[in-house]
């Protein structure tokens, strides 16, 4: 992503990686994953399980569609000139799917068996295993497929075009290029005729490659399969004489492909070359292949060092030569022949003589060859590496023989084509465009060796394939060039911990048994060998591109051709929430043995083990031996609070809580006594009510907490158990043994995020979190770009969710003008009145591809449905949710005058809204709809019992039809929203909330009970970062007062509050006059704040030398504030974490450290002693704790049952406390004792009563949901922020205030609210006013109205139905779940059988 422009007007350039699956078509059925042969590590289970290359991350993932993992293209496929899906067929071989494998091969290449014998396999050089041990035997594997196909006498061809085309194409030359061109054209439906000069088809495959390397029957099989596609091969037809361009044109051929090959040998240019007994290699091989008589005598010389020369030499040997000597220019290591061929030649007793070039032939009188004189070659190539042999004419040697065969190069036979104006290059090759292969004659195309020079069969196939593509485009008048310059790049995977595996060797015919025959030398792999070799594949591309998923997907959602999409977006603001990585403890393996011991897990892995959907389905077992652990240790601060080893000096904030949670859940999972120990330095459970959770873990669940940082984990190799050695608080060395160790790993910013930040020009702090300031917690260094979540700093879920809303508020400020400008209104037709009509039910039974139809007899269910009461139509769809099926459904509803719809498919959780929309679009009330879940509740879970599943499907449909018949239309009421907010409380939180809403363009009334704005902020001095709070509060108050949209009421009292979301009414008495004023507002924000606890302990209030941290903060701001302070003792947790207030006050540790640092800076001589229970400097605050220790502040832990004692002495105060390390009490005379007094909720008792708001035991207001709705209250339309919610830092209050403003804005921005129609309705005739409903309602909604009966306000009703179930007179019905409607299902199931 890149970003240009300015706040309010950015252009964001984004790149979206391909998913290879169309999310709009994917039905999430999972058939693709079943078909996929590739298993890879499941990242979601943290590597503890496997997944397929095509996968859905987890069951509830959004979007619910699958995706395919690819790492570019696998190196083998990318390197193969024909781009065969090599990894794909290997994966299919692994699964024993040989037919699918060979079909996949043939999709790109017609000669698996031929190329399996003769290919020069560039793929194997690129194979990742080649860098690691040995490359895979890729060629042998597809040879195996060819042999297998031969063995089963099959002919497995890929799909061809269904419609034949009228156009004809001529191919000149039946070599691999011509045959491939014909093959690919025939598959596109063209009629192709190949004209071949020789009496056999196959070109060099038939007459160049010797039979012992390529048995002719295998070649013929594959040529025959091309003919099976309708290709006609005419042999013995010479282009230039028998046929010409003109004759072809006259015969109606639309295009011609020239694949003439290189069938003429190159001469040496040495005198007497025309003598008898001097043969050309290609001629010799051709004659030998065609079975012509060749007389070569006993002693044969072969000139040349390439593959052809070796073929010639070995063929000569088989043709009866006793001594064959190969002479070549190159040194042994320079020889152009492949190494394995040279070795085969040596095995075949061929004498190879290197570094000689022919000088002259010896001939006898009858012009017959008798020998050659060679001169020694001193260099083959010049300094630039060009072929330019240099000779030493003085060092010569003579060789004698009966025949010499020259095999130094090939050329096109041009004699025949003279006069045809075939376009040729100066080098004697066919001239054509390198990409399109089109020659200057536009209807003529060229390829193969005659075009690109001598290459391998696979290169000829590649050019044939390209030529076929060009010819097809040419005939269809399309652009020949468009989109054809694909770069085949690949990334190799990083190979770690992969076992070395030897390549499976190919068994060969004994060299002695090869003499004088043309039996195939190589046996190839048998099935067992092929599988062993296939299993070595490292799956470099992840997805193997075997395309099995494409066939499996009946919804046609898979698109392997998708490419990354780059787009420009016009945006006004940008919010960055890229998330986090967890620390990789493998980096500290010497300490934690994470890499080496399977029973050492990260906390993230342990979470997956505890999860019901995890790798062990929630069964707690350890990985090494799947036994149930008896003792588990958690090690805290792994990758956090560790400047020494990993550089992460911060606290990750979440690990103490999750360790408590994991330990408790682990205990819950066990039906035996599980011993759990959490080794920690401090337990940091500082969030709202978190301390209570910690106490529950400790006191109720029996989780043990040990204060110690573990420095070594050692595995006992015999048991897999883990040995921990640590020093306890008294300094004793303890050895402990555990079955499992869980590392509480910290949070980190991922490398990819760091790169994104760099591209966006966002400043990061030293730990790579986004740089923000205390007063603007979500603003990054770049205006208009906001950060939230862990990118902003380590935090837990509630804080991250809150901050996300804060970022939305900040982002929205730049966008308020644009609000609503891109909304499109859905136009719905007028609703059809079905009141009083007899039900006419339409039932749509879904196959869901084969998800349902593969198990359940869907046609049977459909027929059954037709017979059910009131059913007027029953149909079956492949995918009922697809767009076309929805369109059909609309027509069917109209055609059959259907007034109730039953869809029998999947879950209403995901699909009900889709079908309801369809109903509405044809004017049918959307509540006249019912679903029978025959997939999730039937075919998916009863796949082992198709018959039982079908019976159940009928029952489910019968139940749904019965309920549908009982449904009535329901209408969702709309209520207007008063677009004004009331903010209660004018502290930092309240003022920020007010500004957040007002800046979005809505009116705000801010009510503050004091005379001045600012709240507790007025008493604060500086933040720990050094920001001046007093100035900040002053500026903020000025901004609020000056804002045109904000009305500030000070000195107020709320006396009455009524209404509901969108429509509240509040009566306030304002000012000294106590004038009453009624405020109408759509939303309410509670920001009533909190106070510093006023200590009753430690002589506070009695002795002037005992202060609170706030008071000390004030004193230090005054000139000379630190004077005379030689010894200062600070006592933590005063008024917190005790019986009266079990909560941690969150802010006091940092207050103490802030003041301690300030004091040390003012007076470095001051001795400061901080007496604490746990230091809770979470997140980035940890740096200040480190700083305080560096400055010499001393920290002593105390236990609450041995608390410090403070007594007054004549010139100060004396403090006595226990030092755990010394193991004795310390008595200290101090000049000052500072108490870290906790945070106490504001006095909101009366307010809570008037407004009916929930408070917790400590009088903080309670949010609707800790994580999901952290700034909303139980009553809709009321929001919560600041210390009224819980103790928090100023910067956290600001974020929370912005979050509340943002949530409130979502309601204010709508002109009206749509109420649910699923609400409880009272029948006043039946109501006995017994008040049971009022008591049963969890929200207190039912009221006795003026008529003396119960009334339930549909704006407030949450639709749970508790009242309806409790009502003794059955006067209450929950709409859509009326008793009759529920009972109709029961009745239909139990007695509705037909």
């Amino acid at each position, binding site marked *: 992503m890149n970003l240009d422009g300015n706040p309010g007007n950015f252009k964001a350039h984004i790149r979206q990686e391909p998913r290879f699956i169309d999310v709009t078509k994917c039905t999430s059925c999972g058939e693709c994953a079943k078909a996929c042969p590739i298993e890879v590590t499941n990242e979601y289970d943290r590597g503890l399980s496997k997944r397929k290359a095509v996968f859905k991350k987890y069951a509830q993932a959004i979007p619910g569609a699958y995706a395919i993992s690819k790492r570019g293209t696998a190196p083998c496929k990318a390197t193969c000139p024909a781009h065969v899906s090599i990894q794909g067929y290997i994966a299919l071989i692994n699964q024993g799917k040989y037919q699918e494998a060979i079909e996949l091969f043939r999709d790109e290449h017609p000669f698996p068996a031929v190329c399996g014998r003769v290919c020069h396999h560039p793929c194997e050089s690129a194979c990742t295993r080649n860098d690691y041990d040995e490359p895979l035997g890729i060629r042998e594997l597809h040879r195996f497929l060819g042999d297998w196909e031969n063995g089963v006498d099959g002919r497995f061809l890929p799909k061809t075009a269904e419609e034949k085309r009228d156009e004809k194409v001529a191919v000149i030359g039946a070599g691999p290029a011509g045959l491939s061109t014909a093959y690919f054209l025939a598959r596109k439906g063209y009629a192709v005729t190949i004209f071949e000069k020789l009496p056999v088809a196959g070109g060099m495959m038939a007459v160049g490659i010797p039979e012992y390397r390529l048995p002719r029957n295998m070649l013929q099989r594959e040529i025959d399969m091309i003919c099976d596609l309708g290709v006609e091969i005419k042999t013995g037809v010479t282009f230039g004489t028998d046929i010409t361009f003109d004759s072809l044109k006259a015969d109606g051929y639309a295009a011609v492909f020239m694949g003439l090959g290189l069938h003429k040998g190159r001469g040496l240019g040495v005198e007497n070359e025309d003598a008898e007994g001097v043969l050309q290699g290609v001629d010799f091989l051709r004659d030998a292949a065609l079975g012509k008589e060749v007389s070569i005598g006993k002693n044969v010389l072969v000139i040349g060092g390439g593959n052809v020369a070796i073929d010639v030499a070995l063929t000569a040997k088989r043709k009866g030569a006793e001594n064959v000597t190969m002479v070549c220019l190159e040194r042994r290591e320079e020889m152009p022949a492949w190494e394995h061929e040279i070795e085969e030649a040596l095995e075949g007793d061929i004498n190879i003589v290197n570094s000689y070039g022919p000088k002259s032939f010896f001939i006898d009188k009858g012009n017959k060859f008798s020998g050659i004189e060679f001169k020694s070659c001193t260099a083959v190539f010049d300094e630039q590496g060009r072929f330019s042999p240099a000779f030493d004419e003085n060092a010569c040697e003579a060789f004698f023989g009966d025949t010499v065969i020259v095999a130094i190069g090939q050329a096109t036979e041009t004699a025949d084509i003279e006069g045809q104006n075939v376009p040729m290059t100066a080098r004697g090759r066919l001239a054509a465009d390198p990409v399109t292969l089109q020659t200057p004659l536009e209807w003529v195309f060229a390829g193969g060796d005659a075009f690109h020079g001598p290459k391998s069969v696979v290169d000829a196939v590649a050019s044939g394939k390209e030529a076929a593509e060009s010819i097809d485009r040419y005939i269809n008048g399309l652009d020949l060039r468009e989109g054809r310059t694909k770069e085949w790049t690949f990334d190799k995977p990083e190979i770690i911990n992969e076992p070395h595996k030897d390549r499976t060797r190919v068994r060969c015919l004994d060299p002695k048994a090869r003499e004088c025959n043309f039996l195939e030398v190589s046996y190839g792999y048998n099935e067992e060998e092929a599988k062993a070799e296939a299993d070595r594949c490292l799956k470099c591309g992840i997805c193997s591109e075997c395309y099995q998923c494409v066939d499996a997907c009946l919804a046609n959602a898979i698109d392997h051709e998708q490419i990354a999409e780059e787009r420009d977006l016009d945006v006004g603001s940008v919010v960055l929430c890229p998330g986090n990585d967890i620390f990789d403890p493998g980096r500290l393996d010497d300490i934690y043995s994470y890499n080496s011991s399977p029973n050492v897990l990260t906390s993230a892995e342990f979470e997956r083990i505890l999860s*019901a*959907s995890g790798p062990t389905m929630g069964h707690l077992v350890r990985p090494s031996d799947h036994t149930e652990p008896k003792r588990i240790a958690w090690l805290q601060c792994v990758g956090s609070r560790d400047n020494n080893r990993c550089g992460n000096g911060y606290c990750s904030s979440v690990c103490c809580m999750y360790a408590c949670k994991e330990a408790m859940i682990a205990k819950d999972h066990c039906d035996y006594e599980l011993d759990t120990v959490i080794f920690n330095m401090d337990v940091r459970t500082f969030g709202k009510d978190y301390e209570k959770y910690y106490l529950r873990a400790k006191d109720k669940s029996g989780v043990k907490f040990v204060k110690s940082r573990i420095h070594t984990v050692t595995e006992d190799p015999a048991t897999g158990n883990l040995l921990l050695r640590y020093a306890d608080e008294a300094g004793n060395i303890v050895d402990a043994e555990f079955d499992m160790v869980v590392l509480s790993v910290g949070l980190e910013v991922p490398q990819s995020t760091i790169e994104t930040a760099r591209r966006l020009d966002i400043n990061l702090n030293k730990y790579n979190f986004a740089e923000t300031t205390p007063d603007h917690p979500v603003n990054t260094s770049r205006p208009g770009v906001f950060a939230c979540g862990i990118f902003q700093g380590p935090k837990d879920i509630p804080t991250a969710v809150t901050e996300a809303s804060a970022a939305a508020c900040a982002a929205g400020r730049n966008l308020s003008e644009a609000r609503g400008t891109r909304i499109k209104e859905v136009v719905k037709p007028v609703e059809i009145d079905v009141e009083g009509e007899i039900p006419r039910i339409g039932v749509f039974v879904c196959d869901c591809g084969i998800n349902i139809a593969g198990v359940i007899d869907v046609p049977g269910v459909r027929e059954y449905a037709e017979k059910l009461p009131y059913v007027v139509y029953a149909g079956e769809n492949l995918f009922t949710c697809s767009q076309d099926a929805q369109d059909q459904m609309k027509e069917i509803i109209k055609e059959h005058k259907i007034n109730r719809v039953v869809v029998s498919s999947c879950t209403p959780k995901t699909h009900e809204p889709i079908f309801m929309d369809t109903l509405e679009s044809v004017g049918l009330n959307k509540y006249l709809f019912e679903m029978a879940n025959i997939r999730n509740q039937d075919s998916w879970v009863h796949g082992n019992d198709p018959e039982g599943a079908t019976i159940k499907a009928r029952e489910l449909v019968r139940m749904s039809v019965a309920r549908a018949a009982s449904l009535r239309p329901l209408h969702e009421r709309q209520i207007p929203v008063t677009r004004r907010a009331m903010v209660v409380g004018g502290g930092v939180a309240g003022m920020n909330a007010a500004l957040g809403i007002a800046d979005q363009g809505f009116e705000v009334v801010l009510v503050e009970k004091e005379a001045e704005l600012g709240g507790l902020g007025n008493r604060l001095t500086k933040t720990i970062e050094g920001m001046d709070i007093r100035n900040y509060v002053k500026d903020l108050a000025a901004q609020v007062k000056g804002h045109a949209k904000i009305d500030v009421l000070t000195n107020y009292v709320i006396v009455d509050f009524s209404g509901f979301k969108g429509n509240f009414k509040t009566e306030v008495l304002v000012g000294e006059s106590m004038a009453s004023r009624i405020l109408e507002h759509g939303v309410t924000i509670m920001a009533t704040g909190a106070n510093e606890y006023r200590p009753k302990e430690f002589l506070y209030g009695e002795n002037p030398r005992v202060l609170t941290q706030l008071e000390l903060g004030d004193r230090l701001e005054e000139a000379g504030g630190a004077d005379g302070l030689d010894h200062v003792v600070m006592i933590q947790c005063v008024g917190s974490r005790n019986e009266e207030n079990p909560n941690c006050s969150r802010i006091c540790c940092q207050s103490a450290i802030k003041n301690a640092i300030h004091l040390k800076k003012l007076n470095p001589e001051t001795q400061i002693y901080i007496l604490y229970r746990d230091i809770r400097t979470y997140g980035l605050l940890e740096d200040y704790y480190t700083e305080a220790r560096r400055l010499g502040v001393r920290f002593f832990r105390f236990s609450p049952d041995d608390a410090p004692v403070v007594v007054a002495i004549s010139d100060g105060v004396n403090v006595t406390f226990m030092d755990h390390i010394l193991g004795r009490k310390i008595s200290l005379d101090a000049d000052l004792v500072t108490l870290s007094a906790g945070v106490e909720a504001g006095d909101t008792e009366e307010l809570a009563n008037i407004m009916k708001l929930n408070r917790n035991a400590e009088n903080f207001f309670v949010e609707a949901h800790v994580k999901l709705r952290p700034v909303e209250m139980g009553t809709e339309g009321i929001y919560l922020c600041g210390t009224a919610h819980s103790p928090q830092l100023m910067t956290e209050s600001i974020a929370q205030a912005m979050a509340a403003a943002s949530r409130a804005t979502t309601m204010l921005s709508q002109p009206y609210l749509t109420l649910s129609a699923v609400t409880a309705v009272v029948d006043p005739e039946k109501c006995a006013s017994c008040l049971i409903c009022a008591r049963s309602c969890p929200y207190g909604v039912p009221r006795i109205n003026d008529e003396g009966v119960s009334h339930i306000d549909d704006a407030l009703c949450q639709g*749970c139905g508790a009242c309806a179930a409790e009502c003794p007179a059955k006067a209450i019905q929950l709409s859509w779940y009326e008793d009759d409607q529920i009972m109709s299902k029961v009745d239909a199931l*139990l007695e509705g059988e037909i």
Partner: protein
Amino acid sequence: MRLTYPTSVKIVRVPCTGKVDVQHMLRAMEKGADGIYIVGCKEGECHYKYGNLRARRRVEQVQKILNAVGMQSERVQMYNLSSSDAPLFVKYAEEMNDRIKKLGPNPIKARAKSKDQQAA
């Protein structure tokens, strides 16, 4: 996770188990259901605060009634689980299925049948 459970289980959807009424359960027993079980959220985790606790009370009430009329009260049960806990859902389904198999068919069905036969 698509874990297998017995086909004898058919689900009736309600917004909250707190909506399930005693009369719904009794009606099902009367019509011949062999067993009924209510599956609610874990206790303390009800979306509507305490609907699942109300359901448990009502199940207990139905059990009492069944006992009073001489039917096996184990035919009606209350279970709690988290919506993501498929293995536990299956465990409860199997447990219920096994329990009902041991108890045999709902005796009301047999009586209704014999009455039919008598009438015939």
